[in-house]
């Protein structure tokens, strides 16, 4: 009972309009959705039902926008450094960025055995972008929504700050990788080779149905697992941050501890996403 009271108290400290801690969390998990409303007008959804009714052709403006901003930050930072990159003694920022580039380069070299100049920059983009998106998890959960609410002048505005806790974002990334897997599979092995790999392995062509039953799920599981692994890890972390945020002043040490632990998750998930992309693309390039 005492804990529940605390939760409510904490929630009220943050935003007075939440009646319970559950509502606080629920509200923080909602998106700022732009789409066509029931009356035919295009606009932002004001409740989760309204957002749901917009159907597929709607856009999560908050996560999409932050994802784009983070991607642009990544490109701008790396672009400025690459413009000034010298082969002499590197400065501080160049050093840091070279470390990342070299890490990606080494991993690609060790894992990817075909020749393709796109893979390494692609992996760098994935690693840095996913890392930055995950990093938003370390921003205290109320900061960015509060800023957005103040700017919009709407204290009930939905705003989700961590793009990788939106399954659309992670699925978008995973599907991009999936598209490339299919593209390179067909490019390297031809349509027949690609389909043959699914149909004639591992048991030869007389067991085609069995092969398809075994290979197709494994093939389709690649994008699904990519998307859901990242989403699940970050979503869970986010929810725990939200729960911790309900604790009032007790949240500070807990928040710190969870954030420190989360640094590991953030980096690991970005690294995993990159590594699995490289592995999948290597498989796509492997002609048996």
């Amino acid at each position: 009972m005492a804990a529940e009271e605390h939760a409510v108290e904490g929630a009220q400290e943050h935003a007075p309009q939440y009646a319970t801690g559950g509502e606080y969390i629920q509200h923080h998990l909602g998106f700022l959705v732009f789409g066509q409303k029931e009356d035919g007008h295009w606009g932002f959804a004001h409740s989760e039902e309204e957002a749901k009714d917009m159907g597929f052709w709607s856009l999560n403006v908050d996560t999409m926008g932050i994802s784009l901003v983070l991607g642009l930050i990544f490109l701008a930072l790396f672009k400025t450094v690459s413009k000034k990159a010298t082969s002499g003694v590197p400065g501080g920022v160049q050093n840091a960025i070279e470390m990342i580039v070299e890490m990606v380069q080494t991993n690609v070299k060790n894992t990817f055995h075909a020749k393709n100049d796109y893979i390494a920059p692609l992996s760098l983009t994935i690693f840095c972008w996913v890392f930055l998106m995950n990093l938003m998890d370390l921003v205290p959960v109320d900061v960015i929504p509060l800023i957005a609410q103040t700017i919009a002048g709407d204290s009930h505005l939905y705003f989700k700050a961590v793009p990788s806790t939106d399954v659309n974002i992670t699925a978008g990334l995973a599907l991009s990788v999936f598209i490339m897997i299919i593209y390179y599979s067909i490019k390297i092995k031809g349509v027949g080779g690609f389909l043959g790999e699914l149909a004639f392995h591992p048991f030869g062509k007389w067991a085609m149905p069995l092969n398809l039953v075994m290979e197709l799920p494994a093939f389709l599981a690649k994008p699904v697992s990519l998307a859901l692994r990242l989403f699940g890890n970050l979503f869970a972390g986010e929810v725990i941050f939200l729960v911790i945020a309900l604790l009032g002043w007790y949240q500070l040490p807990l928040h710190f501890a969870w954030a420190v632990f989360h640094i590991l998750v953030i980096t690991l998930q970005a690294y995993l996403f990159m590594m699995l992309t490289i592995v999948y693309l290597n498989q796509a390039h492997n002609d048996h």
Partner: protein
Amino acid sequence: MNLNATIFGQIIAFFVFAWFCKNYVWPPIVAALDERQKKIADGLEAADRAGKDLELAQEKASQLLKEAKKDSVSILDQANKRASQIVDEAKEQARLEGQRLITAAQAEIEQEVLRAKEDLRAQVSALAISGAEKILQSSVDEKVHASMLDQLATSL
């Protein structure tokens, strides 16, 4: 957790970002990395070579030093030999000179002796004549007895 068009937005954004990264971000950084790697490799190689050169030079220097020492020893030997030779020659010369002086002096002495004898003889003849004059108490015609006196003088 609605799936919506954000997926497509993310896919498009991803390919645009990856394309941009591939064309404008990746190449300069990797070029700088490769160039530095090459520079470092060259530098290490140069250092290696310099070390080997140094070793070679030291070896050469020590060899030269050894040769120089050997040379100096032989030069010293030669010089010593030459010095003793010169000393010997000088001694020999001095000895010969001394001998020559001695023989010359002896010859002169002999000559002196001969001349003295001659003088003595002449004086003895005069003395004999004057003695004979005194003994004979008479003047002797020098002209008459001259030949006799000369005979006497030569027989002395």
